[in-house]
């Protein structure tokens, strides 16, 4: 039985601004095992990034706060951990890759220096050893080590994302949080970067939470998939369950329905009607019910519970009696 790297239980995160309180994450449950890739899918504003930031404890100061629940990362209680503890695990036990490679690198430091820095913070080693490690990790992500004296502006977008991945993996973390790592790249570079992440991940046995809204990326990369809607997981299962099992949460069906089919001729795309619920209000029943084509009377009144079929579990009233 592989060890659990990350356990999130019943997590509630809120952003408090002067005008309103935004309920970003509402009762999130996730478990990630060693070496596993979990895809976190959902539309913009579903709370995916918020969830990742709470794992790093990097929610925006003063406005973002964890209201309830627990996060256990490799045996450490994140909620109770102090800033010093967090600092020693960030980049070391858990790393994060941000969405935009263009702005995540410091423009006035050479890429070698930026990789060296993570190592210098977490590893107590001689300068030569660390420098050798910088070369090694650059080689690993497919960048000639001699380019480490170059500045970020001398790299292309795909190369920059490789550098960022090199920084994230330099200390061989147990968990990698990848927040839409390929959204800013074009498709061919996307494929290269994903392929590289996949092989590095299996080599270093790193677990990964991959945040994306690209179902193709999910099918390619992930072992398990969690579909997120309005701050909670509405459906979670192995990739096969999500892509092949006929039983689905209506939202997941909507997501798949909105992907255009190459073999059919249609004039219009099929979006899910309606918008995400206002995150400043908590819905009484199922948060998806206003947009749900299969809505029952109970849906707008009672919050659905998780219904499991082995590894596959769905939060919907439709499957209650099965």
């Amino acid at each position, binding site marked *: 039985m592989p060890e659990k790297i990350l356990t999130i239980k019943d997590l509630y995160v809120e952003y408090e601004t002067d005008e309103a309180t935004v309920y970003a994450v509402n009762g999130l449950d996730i478990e990630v095992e060693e070496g596993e890739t979990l895809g976190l899918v959902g539309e913009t504003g579903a709370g995916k990034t918020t969830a990742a930031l709470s794992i790093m404890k990097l929610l925006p100061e003063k406005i973002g706060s964890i209201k309830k629940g627990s996060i256990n990362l490799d045996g450490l209680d994140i909620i109770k951990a102090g800033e010093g503890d967090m600092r020693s*695990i*960030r980049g070391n036990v858990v790393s994060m890759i941000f969405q935009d490679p263009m702005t*995540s690198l*410091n*423009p006035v430091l050479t890429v070698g220096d930026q990789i060296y820095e993570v190592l210098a*913070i977490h590893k107590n080693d001689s300068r030569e050893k660390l420098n050798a490690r910088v070369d090694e990790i650059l080689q690993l992500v497919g960048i000639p080590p*001699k380019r480490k*004296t170059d500045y970020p502006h001398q790299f292309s977008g795909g190369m920059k994302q490789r550098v960022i991945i090199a920084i994230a993996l330099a200390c061989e973390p147990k968990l990698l949080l990848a927040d839409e790592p390929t959204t800013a790249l074009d498709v061919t570079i996307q494929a290269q970067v994903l392929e590289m992440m996949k092989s590095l991940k299996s080599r270093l046995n790193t677990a990964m939470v991959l945040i994306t809204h690209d179902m193709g990326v999910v099918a390619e990369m992930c072992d398990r998939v969690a579909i997120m809607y309005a701050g909670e997981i509405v459906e979670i299962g192995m990739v096969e369950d999500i892509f092949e099992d006929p039983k689905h949460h209506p939202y997941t069906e909507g997501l798949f329905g909105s992907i255009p089919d190459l073999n059919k001729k249609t004039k219009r795309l099929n979006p899910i009607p309606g918008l995400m619920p206002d995150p400043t209000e908590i819905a009484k029943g199922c948060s998806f019910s206003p947009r749900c084509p299969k809505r029952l009377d109970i849906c707008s009144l009672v919050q659905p519970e998780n219904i499991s079929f082995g590894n596959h579990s769905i939060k919907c009233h439709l499957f209650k009696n099965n």
Partner: protein
Amino acid sequence: MTSVDNVENMPIKVRPATKKRSQIKAIAFRFKKNKLAVFGLVLLTVIFMISILADFVVDFDTAINQNMQVRLQPPSREHIFGTDQYGRDMFARIIHGSRVSLFVGLISIGISLAIGVVIGSTAGFYGGRIDNVIMRFMDVLLAIPQTLMAISVVAALGPGIRNLLIAMIVSSIPRFSRIVRSSILSISGQEFVEAAKACGTSDFRIVARHIIPNAIGPIVVQATLNMAATIIAIAGLSFIGLGIEPPNPEWGSMLSEGKAQMRYYPHLVVIPGIAIVLAVMGLNLIGDGLRDSLDPRLKN
């Protein structure tokens, strides 16, 4: 698509062997391209060398010994800058006067820059109440004109080099704090700062290594411009008799002493004036050149 597993075996495209320069060399290289900046640097270096080697060039006594027989002489072979109303050699006075301006300018900028960076980055990085308390205090200092502030400090503590220094430092700190704070505010919102936090970097390291180097442009420009302003302020204070005490030579006090005879003996004010202009111009040119060469994005 190539599989990444065998990346070690992949033929690495080696770029034509461009010389890899160290950072300082790269900055120097870019600086050299700016001819005006190099001119400024040469100018200031010459002034510096003269002020350091002043005692070897001309004896200090020549600068303060009065000789009424040769008073108010125009420039000649014997006195290349002429003599003032007490018959003192202007050349010697200019050379020894450079010491005060440069010494006070450098030290006061160095100290106020250091203090300003600490204050400004604390305020900018932590924000909130700390920011408010510090910056409101700086605003109070900033509300008083620099010269007025310097005058009041010198008036309260008495003239002399040490008090001149204190006056200059106190009046420049708010300017540095403001400019450092505003650069830090704009830079700390950027994603690479968050990325650095996500790597477990400490606050001090983030500010010192990620934020300040990105803000170095405006800070350096402010420092050189401020040093130029300080040199002028010292001259101004000496002009109204609050700077260097006579008979010690100083450019501003030379201007002041010469102003009565300006009409008939213009060299009394033109020569110290030119000295001030050259020093200030040299500093401004260097500041401009440094701003451009410190930014690696403007390479080539």
